[in-house]
């Protein structure tokens, strides 16, 4: 591997910049003449807009203009869309209501944007925003998805009667019902998956710059996928054609999914820049982020899991209601369907599965993908059900899982996915050993002596990453292909630029992508630059989410490197009058195998550009591009074990150990992978113990600041024990599976299984706050 190649624990190149405050984020961008925007937002969860009166605001100091929803409509800017078509089981297409970038008729959640104020300073814009008088007629509100689909509830969109967006199913209902009817045991549970706020450290921001001279727009924005942003803004929102719109996502401080989507603000800033003739910058404050960043999760499901007499699962039936909020966000429809129900087989060989999913409009913020996106919901549902079943059947949770593991690959599940490789027992054994599972009884007894209730729980997760084969997702309704692109440019002095359509917002691509090159050519990591996040530099790309940058983005780099390598070898062979097939590349030199002849890498590169002495017919230069479309999803899997102590007097849970045994296939940089797992587990623990978005009945967001929204902090977390095993992914050149979401997917059920074990009461919902745990522990007595 070399000290900087594949598998090396290289320190992150980008950290110097981040740790010394030299990162350049959207809000750091400043251009001449730039002005500041503040949005006027709805204070009501549901209301008709009778009138927007900006006359007083327009006269206030520093105000350049105030623009509203009627104006943006008149200028032909389109509706925001959901880009994944789902059909209901009756064959009808999903019922998408109109989402205007600035509402002009109806507001549907607190925070819905109504107007934009552009002024010389943020403070003046805020003052003026307060002076915009919006006359609302309040309408009745519904925030609970299960209630919203009942008869007689407030209606959000005329397109969607009873607020039902689609009623979709997957799997074989008849076979599943039959399995349940003939089962030796059926475990039934209701599972709540709590609504979360994504909370990236950097809030969203947008800087729209219209250049009237060239009739050209530039948009700096906090995006995980600037090319998709440009595509959608051009093709659907009618902002500008692609050749007249440059989107730049500079340093981005975390996304967790929330920065995949194209939100109203970037569209409105671009449009407002043209309307006002000045560059317009908007930066969200934290309360706006709580109100308007797409939330995650919010499912309620009922589950029936059927077992035969030898405790083998013979059927699984799931009915899920997913709250999508007030509008359908960009990928919202895919999350509770193809990213969720297709994973309901978990690590288990289940012959019959049926899932029904209803998605629902409510007067809450839009809900879309959040770290894990659908897969945490599937894993939590399955692993809580398995734990419950083990308790009901009186078998150990490990044994119940072992009996049901899939053991031969490839494995076709009844819900589309075809698992390519895995060894679930290996992770289970590794985790149980690391956690000293067998020593638990003694630890529990010792804790009991101290008055503490100790519990242990496990979770065996699987996820589908590396999204995704374009043809496959196309057939399932995706509006885009999910390949990735790369270009490798070898400069005349041998330094290398790698252009990628993946986008790094915390993942460390500037290091790991460079490691691929260092590994291939033996050049120093420092001579390799990764270029990303700018539609003027990188031609096209699909961006970063779904743990796809390694499996898909790096695979594209590998393809481009193959082409560079082939040409470099041709040039070197020509220079050394050797046979091309005898050339090997090592330590920054191209050598003739078995001889002492060599050409340094830089000299070969120079030869490519001087072009004085190239093989006849060869084009000068050394630059190659590639598109890579994956052949399948990848299937990271693993086993997480959590051990807790609950203080029965207060209900406070302390995590005493947390073990993660993951199979990510091959690993490029173990340190970065560990960082991803640590962060993912922290978010999973956040979901399980602390985090929850709450609206009151009138649709006001109660958790609109960190005073009420509990984020995990260092002292909430133990030191994680992480390890990896490896069944390489057979479907991509690097054998990579992806590691970005596993921690958030696998951890919540392990934690809740441990707490319910400790208190002897299985009825507990996330987040397991001290109050809830205390009450559940007392109810168990």
């Amino acid at each position, binding site marked *: 591997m070399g000290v900087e190649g594949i598998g090396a624990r290289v320190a992150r190149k980008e950290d110097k910049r981040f740790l010394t405050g030299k990162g350049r984020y959207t809000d750091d961008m400043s251009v001449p003449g730039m002005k500041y925007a503040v949005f006027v937002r709805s204070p009501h969860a549901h209301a008709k807009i009778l009138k927007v009166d900006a006359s007083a605001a327009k006269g206030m100091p520093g105000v350049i203009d105030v623009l509203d929803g009627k104006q943006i409509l008149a200028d032909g800017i389109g509706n925001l869309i959901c880009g994944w078509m789902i059909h209901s089981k009756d064959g009808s297409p999903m019922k998408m209501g109109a989402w205007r970038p600035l509402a002009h008729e109806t507001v549907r959640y607190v925070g819905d944007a109504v107007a934009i104020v552009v002024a010389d300073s943020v*403070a003046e814009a*805020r*003052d003026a925003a*307060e002076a915009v008088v919006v006359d609302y007629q309040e309408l009745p509100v519904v925030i609970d998805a299960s209630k919203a689909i009942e008869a007689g509830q407030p209606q959000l969109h005329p397109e969607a009667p009873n607020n039902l967006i689609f009623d979709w199913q997957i799997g074989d209902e008849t076979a599943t019902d039959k399995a349940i009817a003939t089962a030796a045991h059926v475990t039934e549970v209701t599972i709540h998956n709590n609504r979360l706020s994504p909370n990236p450290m950097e809030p969203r921001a947008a800087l729209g710059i219209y250049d009237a001279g060239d009739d050209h727009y530039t948009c700096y924005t906090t995006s995980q996928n600037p090319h998709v942003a440009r595509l959608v803004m051009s093709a659907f929102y009618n902002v500008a054609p692609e050749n007249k719109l440059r989107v730049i996502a500079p340093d981005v401080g975390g996304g967790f999914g929330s920065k995949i989507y194209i939100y109203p603000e970037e569209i409105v800033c671009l449009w407002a820049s043209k309307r006002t003739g000045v560059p317009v910058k908007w930066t969200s404050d934290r*309360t706006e982020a709580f109100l308007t960043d797409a939330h995650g999760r919010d499912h309620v499901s009922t589950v029936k899991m059927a077992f035969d007499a030898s405790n083998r699962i013979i059927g699984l039936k799931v009915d899920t209601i997913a709250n999508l909020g007030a509008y359908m966000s960009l990928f919202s429809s895919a999350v509770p369907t193809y990213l969720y129900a297709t994973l309901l087989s978990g690590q288990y060989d289940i012959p019959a599965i049926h899932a029904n999913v209803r998605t629902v409009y409510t007067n809450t913020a839009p809900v879309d993908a959040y770290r894990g996106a659908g897969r945490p919901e599937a894993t939590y549902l399955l692993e809580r059900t398995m734990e419950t079943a083990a308790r009901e059947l009186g078998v150990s949770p490990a044994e119940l899982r072992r009996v049901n593991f899939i053991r031969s690959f490839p494995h076709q599940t009844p819900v589309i996915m075809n698992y390519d490789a895995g060894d679930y027992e290996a992770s289970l054994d590794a985790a149980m050993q690391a956690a000293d599972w067998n020593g638990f009884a003694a630890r529990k007894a010792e804790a009991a002596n101290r008055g503490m209730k100790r519990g242990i729980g496990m979770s065996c997760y699987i996820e589908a990453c590396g999204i995704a084969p374009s043809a496959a997702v196309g057939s399932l309704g995706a509006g885009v292909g999910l390949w990735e692109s790369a270009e490798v440019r070898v400069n005349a002095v041998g330094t290398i630029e790698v252009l990628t359509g993946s986008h790094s917002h915390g993942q460390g691509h500037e290091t790991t992508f460079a490691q691929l090159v260092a590994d291939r050519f033996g050049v120093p990591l420092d001579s390799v630059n990764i270029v990303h996040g700018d539609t003027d530099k990188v031609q096209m790309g699909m961006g970063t989410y779904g743990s796809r940058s390694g499996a898909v983005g790096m695979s594209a780099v590998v393809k481009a490197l193959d082409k560079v390598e082939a040409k470099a070898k041709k040039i070197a062979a020509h220079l050394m009058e050797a046979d091309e097939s005898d050339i090997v590349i090592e330590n920054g030199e191209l050598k003739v195998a078995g001889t002492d002849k060599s050409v340094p890498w830089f000299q070969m590169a120079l030869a490519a550009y001087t072009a004085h002495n190239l093989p006849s017919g060869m084009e000068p230069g050394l630059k190659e591009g590639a598109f890579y479309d994956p052949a399948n999803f990848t299937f990271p899997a693993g086993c997480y074990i959590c051990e807790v102590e609950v203080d029965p*007097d*207060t*209900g*406070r849970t302390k995590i005493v150990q947390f073990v993660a045994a993951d199979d990510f296939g091959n690993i490029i940089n173990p340190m970065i992978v560990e960082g991803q797992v640590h962060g993912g587990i922290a978010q999973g623990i956040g979901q399980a*113990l*602390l985090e929850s978005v*709450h609206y009151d009945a009138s649709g006001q967001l*109660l*958790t609109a600041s*960190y*005073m*009420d*929204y*509990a*984020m995990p902090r260092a002292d909430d977390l133990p030191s994680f024990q992480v390890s990896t095993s490896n069944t390489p992914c057979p479907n991509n050149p690097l054998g990579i599976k992806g590691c970005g979401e596993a921690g958030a997917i696998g951890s919540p059920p392990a934690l809740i299984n441990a707490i319910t074990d400790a208190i002897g009461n299985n009825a507990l919902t996330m987040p397991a*706050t*001290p*109050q809830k745990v*205390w*009450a559940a522990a007392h109810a168990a007595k």
Partner: protein
Amino acid sequence: MYETQYHRASSVQDAVSRMEAAGEGKYVSGGMTLIPTMKQRLAAPSDLIDLRHIAEMQGISVNGRSVRIGAATTHDEVASAAALKAVCPAICHLAGHIGDPHVRHMGTIGGSIANNDPAADYPAAVLALGATIVTNRREIAADDFFTGLFETALEDSEIITAITFDAPAKAAYQKFANPASRYAMAGVFVAKRDNGEVRVAVTGAGANGVFRQMDMEAALAANWSPDALATVSVDATDLLSDLHADAAYRANLVKVMAKRAVAAA
């Protein structure tokens, strides 16, 4: 934040004059409560009169068992004052568990008490220690000072200059923190004097702010031990219910924290 005029007062008198000259003035001390409120545009003082640079409001003096803490003393100074720790470690412990290091290096005891947040820590100490709140006009007994949620006996333009108390024989503070804000969801300060008098003050839990738990005081005066509290029932009627904890759970926490405080004292 709305526009405001900043003043740095050089003395208590200077601060009062500036306040009286201002339209809608506010004193600012550590600013850890006031500034966030202003940033959210929930407060809009025309003038901010900074009290932190007034010499007579600074510092901690310990004379035998008699303690004086200047109102502009930061939480961190209280947490780390060796002389104070020697006579009343409980208040140092309390101060050391307020917020985070940034907050503790800016926030002050005077600001905390003047603000009387129902979930703040200091009011419990002040009440349980039977402290005196010294202002530029008078001395106010703790029992008369805290009058309701964010309400105190302070009059317009009145300034807290110091807190004084006699160190108790035994005292301790135990706080169960709100998982989100880390303010007290229930915090109990217990103090026992040489003469046997016991005071128990509860913060974070009361619907009307900090209060004394008289049943616990009586039980502990009779028998200073955690077990003495076993038979005391905490009435949930006047306790807070919110997103994080309902009144019944808070009642439980008050009892548990009280027991732990007595054990720690």
